[in-house]
C-alpha cells in the first residue's frame, strides 16, 4: 500500500462532508476523484494534506500513520498539493515563487541568514537549482523571469505545479488543475501530469472535466454526498449503474 | 447590598452605551467584514456635534441629537463610499490601515475645530431621583430607557421591513444577496448610516455623565471590539448581551477590585477569550 485512507470521515457541525471513505492511491498512477459539486472532494484533499483533522478514520502513508500530522509535516513526508485558486504571489516572478518550494528540504535558519553562512549560500543555490529544474520540467523557462500576475491562467497552473514539485514529493494532489483553462491548454496540462508519472511521481487529482479524466486516469473514485459510490478504471466507472444514476445522469461522456 | 444594587444600575447604564456602540460596529462587520477602527471617531464626532448644536445653536437636547445622528450617519456613508468601497478587493491589512487614517484625521479635526479641552455637555435631565432607596440622576435612567428603545426600533426595522431584511440577508451571504437582487451597494451605505447614527446616539446619551474630548472614542471603540468578539463578530444579539456583560463587569470590578484598573478588565477578558478561542466566541465555521 502506498497511501490509503481507512474509513475516513469529516463532520462539520451536523453535516457530514466525508463519510467513511476507504481509498487507496496507487503508486506511479494517475488517480482521480470525481463527483458532483459538494460531494466532499476538496474536503477529502484537505483531510489528507492535514488542513482539517478528520472526525474519525485514519490516513496511512507507506505504513505510517499520518492522520494527525500538521500540513507542513505532511509536506515533508512527500505529499504535495495545489489549490483550486493558485494562491501564488502575483508581484513576484515565477522563479522567486518557486524557489521557496524547496525550503522544506533545507536547514538554514535565521542565524544563518544574519551571518550569511556557507550553509545558507549552499542551500540557496540548491533551492535555485531545484526551482530551475522544476521550471524546465513544467515548461516555464520562457516566463521564469516574469511576474506571476502577468501570466496566463494556464501558466499560473503550471507555476503552481512547479511549486508543488519543488518540494520533491512522492505524490501530488491537484485540486481542479484544469479549471479555467481552454481545451488545448488542458491537453498540455494532461501531458504534464503524464510526464510527472513517468518521472515516478504519483498523481491524484480532482477534476470536473470528464473527458480529460476518462482519458487520463488509471483509477477513479467517485464521491457523492461524501460517500464513495464507486471505484475502478474509467471503463468500470462509466458502466457503473450507481455512478450513472448519481452523477453522469445516463450519458457516460458528459 | 445597596452598593451592589447601585453598581448594578451603573453597569446597566454603561452597558447600554457599550451595546449601542458595539451594535454599529457589529452591523458593519456583518455586512462588509471590516473591523472599522474609525468607529470610535464617529462616536466622538457624535458627542461634539450634539454639544455644538446645544451650546452654539441653542437647540434642545433631543433636536441636537437628531442633527448629530444625521450628520454622523452621513460621515459614515462618506467613509464607506470614499474609502471602504474602493478597498473592497484589497488585501485585508489595507482597510484596517485606511480606517486608522480616518480615525487619526477625525480626531485631529475635532481638536482643530473644538480644541483639546475637556468639555461638559449640559442636559435638561440633571435632576436627582430617589427610587427604591437608590439615588441616581435622570440622565442615567434616560440612557437606559433610550438605549433600549433604540434597540427595539432597530430590531423592528431589521425584522419587519424589507430594507432591514436585506441587511440581514447580506450579512449572511453577500453573493447570495446579490443574486436575489439586493442592491449591495445601497445596503452597505445604509449600514454605515445606521452604524454612524447609533454611535452618535450613544455618545450623545453618555456625554452628559462623561466628558467630551477628542480622544473620547478611543477607549470606547476598543471595548466595543472586545464586546463583538465576546458576542460573535457580526452578531446583533451578541453585541447587546456582550455590551451589558462588559458594563456589569466594569462597574462591579471598579467597586470590588480597583477603580484604577477597571478599564483593563475588558482587555484582559479579550486576551483570555482569544487565547482560548483564536477565532472568537461563536465563530462561524473555519476560515
Amino acid at each position, binding site marked *: 500500500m502506498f497511501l490509503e485512507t481507512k474509513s475516513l470521515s469529516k463532520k462539520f457541525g451536523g453535516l457530514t462532508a466525508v463519510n467513511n471513505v476507504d481509498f487507496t492511491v496507487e503508486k506511479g498512477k494517475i488517480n482521480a476523484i470525481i463527483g458532483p459539486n459538494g460531494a466532499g472532494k476538496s474536503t477529502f484533499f484537505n483531510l489528507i*494534506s492535514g*488542513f482539517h483533522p478528520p472526525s474519525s478514520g485514519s490516513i496511512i502513508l507507506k505504513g505510517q500513520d499520518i492522520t494527525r500530522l*500538521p*500540513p*507542513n*509535516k505532511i*509536506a515533508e513526508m512527500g505529499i*504535495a498539493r495545489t489549490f483550486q*485558486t493558485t*494562491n*501564488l504571489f*502575483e*508581484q*513576484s516572478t515565477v522563479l*522567486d515563487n518557486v524557489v*521557496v*518550494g524547496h*525550503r*522544506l528540504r533545507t536547514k*538554514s535558519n*535565521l542565524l544563518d*541568514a*544574519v551571518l*550569511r553562512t556557507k550553509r*545558507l549560500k549552499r542551500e540557496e543555490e540548491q533551492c535555485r537549482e531545484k526551482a530551475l529544474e522544476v521550471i524546465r520540467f513544467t515548461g516555464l523557462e520562457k516566463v521564469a523571469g*516574469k*511576474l506571476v*500576475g*502577468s501570466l496566463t*491562467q494556464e501558466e*499560473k497552473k503550471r507555476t503552481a505545479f512547479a511549486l508543488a514539485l519543488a*518540494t520533491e514529493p512522492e505524490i501530488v494532489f491537484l485540486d481542479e488543475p484544469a479549471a479555467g483553462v481552454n481545451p488545448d491548454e488542458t491537453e498540455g496540462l494532461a501531458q504534464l501530469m503524464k510526464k510527472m508519472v513517468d518521472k515516478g511521481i504519483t498523481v491524484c487529482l480532482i477534476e470536473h472535466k470528464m473527458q480529460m479524466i476518462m482519458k487520463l486516469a488509471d483509477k477513479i473514485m467517485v464521491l457523492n454526498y461524501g460517500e464513495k459510490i464507486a471505484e475502478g478504471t474509467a471503463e468500470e466507472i462509466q458502466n457503473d449503474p450507481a455512478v450513472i444514476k448519481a452523477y453522469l445522469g445516463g450519458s457516460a461522456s458528459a | 447590598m445597596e452598593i451592589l444594587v447601585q453598581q448594578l444600575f451603573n453597569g446597566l447604564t454603561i452597558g447600554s452605551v457599550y451595546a449601542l456602540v458595539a451594535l454599529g460596529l457589529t452591523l458593519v462587520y456583518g455586512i462588509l467584514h471590516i*473591523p472599522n477602527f474609525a468607529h470610535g471617531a464617529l462616536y466622538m464626532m457624535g458627542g461634539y456635534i450634539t454639544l455644538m448644536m446645544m451650546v452654539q445653536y441653542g437647540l434642545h437636547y433631543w433636536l441636537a441629537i437628531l442633527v448629530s445622528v444625521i450628520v454622523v450617519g452621513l460621515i459614515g456613508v462618506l467613509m464607506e463610499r470614499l*474609502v471602504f468601497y*474602493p*478597498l473592497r478587493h*484589497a488585501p*485585508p*491589512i*489595507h482597510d484596517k*490601515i*485606511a480606517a*486608522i*487614517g480616518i*480615525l*487619526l*484625521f477625525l*480626531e*485631529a*479635526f475635532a481638536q*482643530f475645530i473644538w480644541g*483639546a479641552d475637556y468639555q461638559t455637555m449640559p442636559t435638561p435631565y440633571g435632576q436627582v431621583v430617589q427610587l427604591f432607596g437608590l439615588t441616581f440622576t435622570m440622565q442615567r435612567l434616560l440612557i437606559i430607557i433610550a438605549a433600549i428603545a433604540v434597540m427595539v426600533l432597530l430590531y423592528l426595522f431589521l425584522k419587519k421591513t424589507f430594507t432591514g431584511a436585506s441587511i440581514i440577508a447580506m450579512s449572511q451571504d453577500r453573493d447570495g444577496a446579490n443574486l436575489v437582487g439586493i442592491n449591495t451597494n445601497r445596503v452597505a451605505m445604509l449600514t454605515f448610516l445606521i452604524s454612524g447614527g447609533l454611535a452618535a446616539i450613544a455618545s450623545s446619551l453618555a456625554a452628559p455623565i462623561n466628558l467630551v474630548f477628542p480622544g473620547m472614542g478611543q477607549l470606547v471603540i*476598543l471595548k466595543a471590539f472586545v464586546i463583538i*468578539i465576546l458576542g460573535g*463578530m457580526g452578531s446583533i444579539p451578541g453585541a447587546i448581551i456582550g455590551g451589558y456583560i462588559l458594563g456589569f463587569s466594569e462597574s462591579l470590578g471598579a467597586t470590588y477590585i480597583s477603580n484604577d484598573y477597571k478599564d*483593563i478588565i475588558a*482587555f484582559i477578558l479579550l486576551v483570555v477569550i*482569544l487565547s482560548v478561542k*483564536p477565532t472568537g466566541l461563536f465563530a462561524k465555521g473555519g*476560515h
Partner: protein
Amino acid sequence: MAKIINKRFIIPVLILFAIVFPFVTQNDYFIHVMTLSFIWMIGVYGLNLLAGYTGYLSLAHAGFFAVGAYSLGLLTVKAQMNFWLAFVLALIITSVLGFLIGLIALRTKEHFFAIYTLCVGYILYLIIDKWDSLTEGVRGLIGIPAPGNIGPISFETPLSQYYLVLAILLVVILIIYRIVHSLTGRTYIAIRNSEDLAQTIGISTMKNKLEVFVLSTFFAGLSGALYASFIRFIGPDIGNIVITFDLLTYLLIGGIGTLSGPIVGTVLVVWISQQLQFLQDYRMLIFGPILTLLVIFYPRGIAGSIAGWNVKRAEKKIAKAQQDERFSQSPISAENQVKEG
C-alpha cells in the same frame, strides 16, 4: 540590470551622507532631529518585518517600544545598573515578552490579530500609566543616563550619540537586508502571500511567525531603549497607541514591505513635521488622509511605487525585445494585488 548598478551606487552615497551630515549642517538641532529619526527607523524596520514581509499588522508596537524604554529607564535609574548591562537586559525583557505574547497572539489571524494586539498594546500602556510605584505613572521617569562609555569612547555629546545611533541603525539595516534576501525572508514572504500555501510546501508557519514577531518586538525594544537614553526622560505616552500609528504612518508613506521604505518614510515625515512645528498637534489632519489615500492609490508607498515603476519599465523592455503584443499591455501595477479567483 540598471537597477542593481543604481543600488550599488545609492547605498554608499546614503551612508556617506549620513556620516558627513553633522559636519555639513553644524546645527545641533538638526543633528538631534536626525538622531531621533534614526531611532524611529529601527522601530519602523521591526514593524515592517512583521506587517510588511509577513503580513501581520501588529498594533502593539508602541507597547513594546515603551517596554524597551522603561526597562532601560528603570534598570538604570532605580536599580542603578550599568548602562550597557541594562541595555542588553532591556532587549531581553522586550523579546521575552514578545515571545510570550506572540505565542498566544499568533494563533489569531487578520482582524483578530489586529484587535488582539491593539488590546495588548493598550494593556501595556495602562500598566505603565497606572503602576505608579514602579513607573512613576504620569510623572514620568527622569534622569535616564546617556549611553555609558565603551572603552575610551563616551556618548555624552549629541554628535557622539548621533554616530552611535547611526552605527546601530546600519547594523539593523544590514541584518534586515540579509534576512529579507535569504531563504528565511522568502519563507516570511510566502507566509504573507498565503499561509495555506506556505504550509503545504512544508513551512511551519507558527514557528516562523513567532520568530518574526520576537525579532520585530526586539527592534521595537531596541528603538525604545535608544529613545530613553537619548531623550533621557520618558512618560507613559510613549506607549500610547498614537505612537504605533506614527510608526505605521512612516512605514506606509515610505513603502510597506520594502527595504528602503522605513528610511524614506521616517526621514520625510519627521522632517516635514519638524518644519511644520506649528502643526504638531494637528499633523494628523494631513497625515491621516495621506495614510488613507496611500492605501487606496499607492498601497506600496514611495519606495514600493518606484520599485513598481522600475519593474514595469523592465517588463516593457522585455516586451519590446520579444516583439510580442501580449506583453506590451504590462498588467503589472502596484495596485494589482488581487488574487485570481
